[in-house]
């Protein structure tokens, strides 16, 4: 019941936003207040039920369509809880970071809240059709957030995003339906281990599901929709777009494809791991060549998503735990970097790396946090990303040595372009006289980035806080797929 309430509160929030008078301060505080509720609930769930998320208080099972055995089945487990929490958390951050949005604020927050319903729902759904419904609910608000509030290039970017990901999810739905029909249920708990399907059937079903999920991630070379969308979006949309949405794909891989079709995905796993490595290496090289700071962060984000694919494909405890963890740490660092890029662009009026330089002198806090985010992205020990990337590589190396070694090389590549970026943007002489006048990030901006930085550090130092919650669920997956 708590889970359902948490999912539905943003929907009420969206309606509330549309009813409130058009006054900016009121809207911002109201949105913040609404967004805080799911976060408080998620935090409560962590402390009250963190040891055992499988309790009845968190799950609900109502049959929706009798003849097809489709139900409203929700519940939390360690695979989804981290992202469930992060979705609520990043929505609060996105609202704090939404200062660049001035037009139609109430509609903006309403769309943001509808997207939050979909995101929370995906990570709690325990029924394939419900999973798909929540998966798609995120689509239209995201289309609007990019298409209405983005920059000049927003319209083609938004429609491209929509068509690509809709194609992916429709193909994925076909796979879900085939699975549900053959196994005669859509309940994820009843389907565990393949639902009694033959290996051939599982392979045939896994192919469309994996295709749909990999578009969503996106795995290179299915990523061509991504750059325009990331670059065109307002900062606060970026927070969700990079922090949560790719994980709809990776979570589907870990929660649906692997445990429900263990024999079906098996032949594909080496390629999923290889896709991960391609993401890491391709992302790094392309990021290196970007003249635009936001595009660089976008490609960096594609790159580090590769570790999730590698860890998920590994099929062992270390790799899977790393993948589940990396979903969260990737969300934290990419949100941090996107917000800071927004802060810098607002001060200097440009995002071109060649036109920036020496910002640390004028913006010690923003510059320092940018450096922290960049160090996190390259996997510096002591920060959350290190833990998860290291585990993903270790797990991946055990199963797929070649892919594991190449992924480790990718860390070096990412260090190259991130250090280059830091050197160009925040260190060195001040590039333009105009920059002498700019001030540091103000309290309103700091409040949206500091929590991210704090969590990056806390999870980096005490990874057990999250791994302890996710381990039981990972063990269940391992017992299904017969890994160790």
């Amino acid at each position, binding site marked *: 019941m708590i889970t359902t309430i948490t999912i539905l509160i943003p929907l009420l929030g969206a309606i509330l936003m549309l009813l409130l008078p058009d006054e900016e301060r009121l809207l911002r505080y109201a949105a913040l207040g609404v967004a805080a509720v799911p976060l408080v609930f998620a935090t409560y769930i962590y402390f009250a039920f963190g040891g055992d998320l499988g309790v009845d208080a968190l799950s609900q099972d109502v049959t929706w*369509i009798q003849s097809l055995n489709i139900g409203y089945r929700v519940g939390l487990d360690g695979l989804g809880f981290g992202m469930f929490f992060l979705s609520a958390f990043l929505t609060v951050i996105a609202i704090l970071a939404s200062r660049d949005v001035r037009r139609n604020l109430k509609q903006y927050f309403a769309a943001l809240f509808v997207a939050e319903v979909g995101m929370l729902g995906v990570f709690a759904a325990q029924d394939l059709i419900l999973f798909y419904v929540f998966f798609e*609910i995120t689509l239209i608000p995201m289309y609007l957030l990019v298409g209405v509030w983005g920059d000049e290039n927003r319209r083609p970017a938004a*429609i491209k995003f929509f068509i690509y990901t809709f194609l992916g999810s429709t193909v994925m739905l076909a796979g879900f339906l085939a699975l549900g029909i053959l196994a005669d249920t859509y309940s994820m708990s009843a389907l565990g281990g393949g639902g009694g399907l033959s290996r051939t059937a599982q392979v045939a079903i896994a192919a469309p599901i994996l295709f749909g999920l990999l578009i969503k991630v996106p795995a290179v070379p299915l990523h061509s929709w991504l750059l325009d969308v990331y670059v065109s979006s307002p900062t606060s949309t970026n927070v969700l777009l990079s922090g949560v949405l790719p994980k709809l794909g990776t979570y589907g891989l870990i929660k649906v494809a692997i445990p429900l079709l263990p024999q079906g995905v098996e032949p594909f796993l080496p390629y999923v791991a290889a896709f991960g490595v391609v993401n890491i290496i391709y992302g790094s090289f392309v990021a290196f060549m970007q003249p635009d700071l936001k595009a660089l962060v976008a490609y960096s984000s594609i790159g580090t998503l590769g570790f999730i694919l590698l860890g998920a494909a590994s099929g062992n405890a270390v790799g899977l735990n790393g993948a589940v963890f990396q979903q969260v740490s990737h969300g934290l660092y990419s949100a941090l970097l996107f917000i800071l890029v927004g802060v810098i662009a607002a001060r200097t009026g440009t995002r071109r790396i060649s036109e920036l330089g020496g910002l640390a002198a004028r913006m010690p806090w923003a510059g320092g946090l940018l450096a922290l985010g960049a160090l996190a992205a390259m996997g510096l020990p002591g920060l959350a990303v290190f833990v998860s990337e290291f585990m993903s590589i270790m797990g991946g190396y055990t199963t797929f040595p070649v892919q594991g070694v190449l992924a480790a090389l990718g860390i070096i590549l990412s260090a190259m372009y991130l250090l280059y970026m830091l050197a160009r943007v925040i260190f060195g002489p001040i590039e333009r006289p105009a920059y002498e006048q700019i001030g540091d990030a103000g309290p309103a901006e700091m409040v949206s980035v500091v929590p991210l930085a704090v969590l990056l550090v806390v999870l980096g130092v005490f990874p057990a806080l999250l791994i302890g919650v996710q381990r039981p669920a990972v063990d269940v997956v391992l017992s299904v797929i017969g890994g160790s």
Partner: protein
Amino acid sequence: MAVTGQSIVALLPELISTGFLILVLLAGVFGGGNAGISTGLAALGSLAVFASAAVLLATSFSGSFFGGGYVVDGFALYFKLIIAGSALFAVLAAARWSGSTGDAPEYLTLILSVVLGATLLVSMRDLFGIFLAIELATIPSYAMVAFDRSRRESAEGGMKYLITGVIASSVLLYGLVLIYGVSGSAQLSDVAKTFTGSLSPVAVLGLVLMISGFAFKLSAAPFHFWTPDAYQGAPTSAAAFLSVGPKAATFAVLLRILLEGMPDAAPTWTAVMAFLAIITMFVGNLFALRQRNVRRMLAYSSVAHSGYILAAFAALQGGGTAFAVQAVLIYTAAYAVMNMGAFLVIDLVGEDAKSYNGLVRANPAVAASMGLFMAALVGIPPLAGFFGKLWIIIAGAQSGSILVYVVVGALVVNTVLSVPYYFGIIRNMILEEPTTETGRKEGDGAVRFSVYVLAILTTLFGLLIIPLSALAGASGLL
């Protein structure tokens, strides 16, 4: 052939529509040119037909009457609800426009005659009864399309519709006569006895001609070419009504003929349906992509949706039969609410795609409704169209036929293919700047009311789906 109390109850929806049809005409003669009276009577009539069908359904009234030629079962009553419901919205939408033409009673009478023909049609179990009922439903619809004398396109569309419709009727009649000749009886139950084993060439010819005749009526490719002109020329309420109400009835009777009259010939006709479905989906969507006029776009979209429903017909085999019947029932209801809504919005906004620019600022409620209709027509969950497609895909997957898998694959591809033109409208409404044209039309309260009600039905379809699928389960056709 005794007329008993039972048979009068069975004919209640038809008798009510006949009664109101006469009343509306009389109101035209004696009402002193007051369009309000005839509109009220016509709306009341549609409601009464709806209510009578609902009562019959609720009391599980069923039976076979008039020598077995007329049947009342859950299946027939379900479609009578769709027909009467869509007629009600058509009357509401036509209220002001038909009043302004000065011929409101005549136009509303036509709507009620179509209702009469279509409600009869879904209950017919006799080949010639079916033909007569189809004609009773189509002949008034030619006049409805051509009714707008102030626009040349209306007459042109009506003419094209009439000519192709007459050809279709003769092809259909030819097919029915051949089937009658082979089986020696017009009763579907007798036809079923002869359509077994390997079919004689005459029987196959009869089957193919009959399906071609239906394909014309259902605007299935390659017999669809009248659709864009007719729907573009027709008054909005006529296009909205004809594309959902009588069409649903035609699908229903085709389903009855095929399942009751020739179940053993299923391998033959499912193959024909599979090819028709694939061609129709692609033609509808590919042509819709090129349209700038929203009426024409919706006309081609209705071709595409006919293709989707025909895909359910192709799945009427193996383990998919029960789900395929449900799919037709659910899809026609879903299509009725979302397509009718989209057509009625044209009356409020305009038919040029550009007139939707920036509508979300000029008129947010109408824009939101239109957005819902467009998203539902694509099949985005949890809106109406999603459930229709869900059932078709499930039926197709259970049919166990490779050809049907191909059809389902084509349906998935076409769903994605249809995104650009439906979302083109959403993009115009939300992302483009308003032009001077935006929201130019006034639109009256009745249309607005209908649009909002239909938008709510489109959104809450997922909750309606439970009673609907239960009804569909008790359809009596299987």
